[in-house]
């Protein structure tokens, strides 16, 4: 990603989505910044007190008592600085934390509304990077960035003002390097950002190389290629190192260069300012004060570079976040009506045709099928024949054109999304389990389901005994910080999850593949006997499952080539040829 030079205004524009948040926290923010400015002025006051002490000591016009007063004055100033500092940190940095929280919530809410196609083309790692690193960069820009900007600006301007007050000539002389600094900082940031880009790129190359090595570990071990692979990683690492060092050659210039400019100013002031003092145009005290103010300028000058960097990185992050926030949820419920709809379970596909965006071939071609309430439909077909795509159109995870899919005689697009999805129990192929308790994994936030129903569902999914065997039973935590379930257990858990709400439509997408035949039969018997009045759609490769369906729909390359009951299908040569390859494994499994 190349970051060309970005003018300040467009940097601000990137932060525009935060306008509301800034408005919301305008009081703490302005109070905090006010405290910050006060701190700056008070900080400039301490040297003045010291200068007075020095002057008084020179003139021998001072007593021990007045010295004590001066000392107390410094302590008083320091105390107020301390209190004010506490408040600006609390208010300004605190506000940046609050803004961060709001932005993260907003992003999460938005991401939840995005549909499958977004998640298919976006890696989870990328989304995580937005939500963690980028939001952090924004926080840095709105917190420390803002503080440094205001602080540096106030300090810089005040110091320059005081310098001009002391001697306009010296001020002019010592600020001579300033244009060079601005030029240098500009060039520098431009060079750095392209440098960082290539560092970033070699880093992701390295990451990919390492990932590849671990993902392909079996091949590497099977061919004893460990040495080769570690050499490849080493090479990639060296490339990364050399990119970093290339950047370091530029980066290492920055702070010494800033210091150089500042110290050049001091050298000039000592030479020319000293002459001025000798010639009596300024006093010696002025000369001393001038040098100390020039020293005070170092920080604002450095801050300028730092702030530019913070803002630019914040802006780049904000742009990435904005891109994600601008993603339109492709699938939304009908506008207006908010009346709750309850599905009965009548489904009709009318010439359903579907194509994934960016793909040429149609995933589903002109499928018409009518499923009555209480029917069980079995979908069969090879891998990638369109079964999963077909099923995903039901809860509108994939969206179809108007008029292609009717539920209870109503176009599916006119049913509120929430109601539609509430009334379809969907068991996906991959059994997704969250790091949470079994109970929460079953409920997924659905309230008002009594425990007995959960137990009932676990029994139907043949998981009850195993769950009860755990020390904490249904409240056992799963995943990362808890226990790990086997593939079959996960599948059974997701089945229980789908049936607890006794949905009018149940979809099971090859969701018993890791469960042995006997258990599968038990589970299906249990579910189907409970759901005689309800609609069921089941994908399975096992003949036992297929045989109990009212309707068997045979899919082949996106087409539904056959639909009918078991007897009709078994005489169909196409169906049989489809099953030739799977027959072996299945028959073996049935053999015991």
């Amino acid at each position: 990603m190349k970051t060309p030079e970005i003018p300040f205004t467009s940097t601000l524009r990137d932060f525009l989505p935060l306008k509301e948040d800034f408005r919301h926290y305008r009081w703490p923010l302005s109070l905090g910044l006010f405290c910050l400015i006060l701190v700056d002025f008070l900080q400039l006051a301490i040297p003045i007190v010291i200068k007075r002490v020095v002057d008084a000591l020179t003139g021998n016009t001072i007593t021990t008592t007045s010295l004590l007063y001066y000392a107390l004055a410094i302590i008083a100033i320091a105390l107020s600085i301390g209190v004010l500092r506490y408040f600006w940190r609390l208010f300004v940095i605190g506000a940046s934390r609050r803004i961060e929280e709001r932005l993260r919530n907003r992003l999460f809410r938005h991401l939840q509304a995005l549909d499958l196609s977004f998640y298919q083309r976006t890696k989870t790692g990328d989304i995580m990077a937005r939500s963690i690193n980028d939001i952090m960069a924004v926080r840095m820009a709105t917190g420390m960035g803002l503080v440094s900007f205001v602080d540096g600006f106030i300090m810089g301007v005040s110091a320059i003002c005081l310098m001009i007050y002391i001697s306009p000539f010296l001020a002019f002389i010592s600020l001579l390097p300033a244009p060079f600094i601005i030029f240098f900082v500009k060039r520098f940031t431009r060079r750095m950002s392209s440098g960082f880009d290539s560092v970033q790129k070699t880093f992701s190359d390295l990451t990919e190389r390492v990932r590849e090595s671990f993902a392909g570990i079996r091949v590497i071990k099977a061919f004893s290629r460990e040495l080769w692979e570690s050499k490849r990683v080493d090479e990639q690492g060296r490339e990364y190192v050399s990119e970093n060092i290339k950047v370091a050659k530029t980066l290492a210039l920055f702070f010494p260069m800033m210091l150089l400019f500042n110290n050049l100013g001091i050298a000039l002031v000592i030479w020319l300012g000293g002459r001025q003092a000798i010639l009596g145009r300024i006093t010696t005290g002025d000369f001393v004060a001038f040098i100390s103010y020039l020293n005070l300028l170092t920080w604002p000058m450095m801050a300028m570079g730092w702030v530019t960097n913070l803002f630019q990185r914040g802006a780049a992050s904000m742009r990435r976040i904005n891109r994600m926030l601008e993603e339109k949820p492709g699938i939304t419920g009908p506008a207006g009506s908010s009346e709750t709809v309850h599905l009965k379970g009548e489904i009709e596909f009318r010439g359903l045709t579907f194509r994934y965006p960016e793909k040429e071939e149609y995933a589903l071609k002109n499928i018409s099928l009518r499923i009555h309430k209480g029917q069980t439909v079995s979908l069969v077909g090879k891998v990638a024949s369109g079964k999963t795509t077909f099923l995903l159109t039901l809860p509108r995870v994939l969206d179809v054109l108007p008029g292609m899919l009717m539920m209870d005689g109503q176009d599916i697009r006119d049913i509120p999304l929430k109601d539609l999805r509430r009334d379809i129990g969907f068991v996906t192929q991959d059994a997704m389990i969250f790091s949470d308790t079994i109970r929460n994994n079953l409920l997924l936030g659905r309230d008002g389901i009594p425990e007995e129903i959960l137990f009932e569902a676990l029994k139907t999914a043949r998981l009850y005994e195993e769950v009860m065997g755990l020390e904490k039973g249904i409240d056992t935590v799963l995943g990362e910080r808890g226990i790990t379930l086997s593939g079959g257990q996960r599948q059974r858990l997701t089945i229980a999850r789908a049936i607890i709400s006794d949905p009018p439509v149940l979809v099971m997408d090859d969701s018993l593949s890791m469960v042995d035949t006997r258990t599968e039969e038990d589970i299906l018997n249990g579910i189907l006997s409970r759901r005689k009045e309800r609609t069921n759609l089941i994908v399975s490769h096992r003949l036992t499952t297929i045989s109990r369906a009212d309707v068997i729909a045979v899919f082949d390359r996106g087409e539904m080539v056959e639909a009918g009951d078991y007897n009709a299908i078994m005489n169909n040569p196409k169906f049989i040829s489809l099953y030739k390859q799977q027959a072996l494994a299945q028959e073996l499994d049935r053999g015991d």
Partner: protein
Amino acid sequence: MHQDFGYMEEGRLGRPYNLRLLKRLARYAAPYSGTVLGCLMLALSLTLLDLSLPYLSKVAIDEFILSSWYRLNLSGLEQEDRELFLQKYGYLIEKSGSGSHTELISNSNIKKIDPADLRGYREKGVIMDRHLYKVFMDDDGTDAGFHTRLNPAEAGDGYMAVPVEEINRLDSTDIKAIREGDFRGLALIGIVLLVLVILSFWGGYWEEYLLEYIGQNIMQDIRNDLFRRIQARAVGFFEENPVGRLVTRVTNDIENLNEMFKSVLVTVFKDIFIFAGVLIILLYINWRLALASFIILPFIFVFTFLFSSLMREAFREIREKVAKLNVFQQERFSGMRIIQLFAGEDHQMRSFSDLNHENFLAGMRQIKLFAVFVPVMELFSSFTIALIIWHGGGKVIGDQLSLGSLVAFISYIQMFFKPIRDISEKYNIMQLAMASTERIFESMDSGREEHDSETPAPPSALKGRIEFRDVSFSYVKGVPVLRDISFEIKPGEMVAIVGATGAGKTTIAGLIERFYSPDRGSILLDGIDIRAIPRETIRSGIGLVMQDVFIFSGTIRENISLGRDYLAEQDIIDAVRDANASRFIEKFPDGLNHSLSEGGSTLSGGERQLLSFARALASRPGILILDEATSSVDPETERYIQDAILGMTRTRTTLVIAHRLSTIRKADRIIVMHRGKIYEQGAHEELMTKGGIYYKLNRFREYSESAA
């Protein structure tokens, strides 16, 4: 300027960093000790430069800007006192010439006289209060003509002493002419400063550059070390640990060390230098005042100590909350489909915003701590300055301390506090880096590495006899995958294993390759227990074709050779031919040199299989283990694959985990597996006569084939 490298991944954290970790890290720095030493020397010199800059301006003021002389009237003293004075301070006096009793003493030298003596001499009129300036005359006794306008107080050999006020009354051309020496002195200081500034610039540049160089190289070494150790783990380790986490360990965690090497370690040294330097200078200027101003130090140390434990706690809490938030997000983003299918968005949003708020609160706690810590440290510094003004100012009044020293004290004490203040800022970086270090070393140490028997069998080419004797194996304790498996494959034989998914077929291949070790029983190759054979011998002697083909980024040639240098070009060409892969490779204009993108996504499933055949055949292994892919391919490629399989199994011992009927038919023997057990085995004909499940299977197949 710190970069982001992916997102932070979390584990448990929070122990304070300890010496053991640092020691271990230091071992990686050992090869660069020369450069590190150079860096430290640079840091030391830069500190000296930093410390000298204020001193130079002090010299500029005292020696040149305020240069003036006082007249000494030693004749007003008794002989005895005069000798005492000359003995004590004679070196300070500028003699005006022989015979004269009036001498001059310079403005800067007069401060070297003991304040008590000074008052006495002043009272006695030995030292005049009037500031004089020495005006030199030209060699020939003339000058630029202004001496006529001056009223010299004293004339010596080649100069006259003029009261400063007189000089200041002149116009600037005259002042310039008179004080040319001071101007030159100022210019000299300017030039010295310029040189120092340029030196400090170059030093600063090299310091930064070398730091990066050292840091990057150490990181590269640690990375390679860690990678090799992880790579050496048994295959089971990679099944238990998600690849993503391992990658994070090798890349991101090591990246976190960079900040530590760069900004912390050397700045810590620099801080120590400055701290020590200022300490010495202050003690040198006035040890009494120095000790008085150090009164505050114990308070600072106690305060910092107390606060650091609070901050550590706050830091730990933040990390924990961030970790929770990350795990939550990671799972929801990858499982978003489930949430949407169950319309659980509102509930998830509530859970998320709760976690997010906890994270915010933890952040606020840290902000509050910092909001107290930083100002209090500033307060300590201001207290010290107040103390110096009060106490030191008193000393100035009492003529025990010069004014310049007081000013120097104040500016040095500010330098003194900066390192202490910075420690808190570096604390966070240090914590982060230490947490990463701990994880890195933990990953290095934990987990079993594969290791070979101490007394290995002499390496020899495998003839191809494979024997399983009552082998049992389980991935997870209590869930057996293989149960008392025994079979034998003779050299040159082709054996097919059939059975449902999960019957344990692939596990058999993994056991022969020594990816795993059997729980019970033994496996023999050519009559030798494989535990006694070096893994290298086994693995390079067996050609393994895995079910899912892994493609490395690189050319097709690299993917076949996998860097095996001993393979000749002809070996690769032969392997490609035997694997029936020439057809698709020739489709690419650059043939074998065709570059495959990430994961080989440009190849079809069938092409990938053919490629993996070539990979296995290239070293002409005596044994071939073929785990047939189940994914379907287009009929044409399917024919190519079948032909290749028939060809390559003809000449060597082959164990094939079969899915293709054509492969099964062709086998000398068929092992029918079910749920970790061998159900029946024998040649096709035998099994058909036996009438077991294999027979039933075939009947079904014939039925379906006739129907097709």
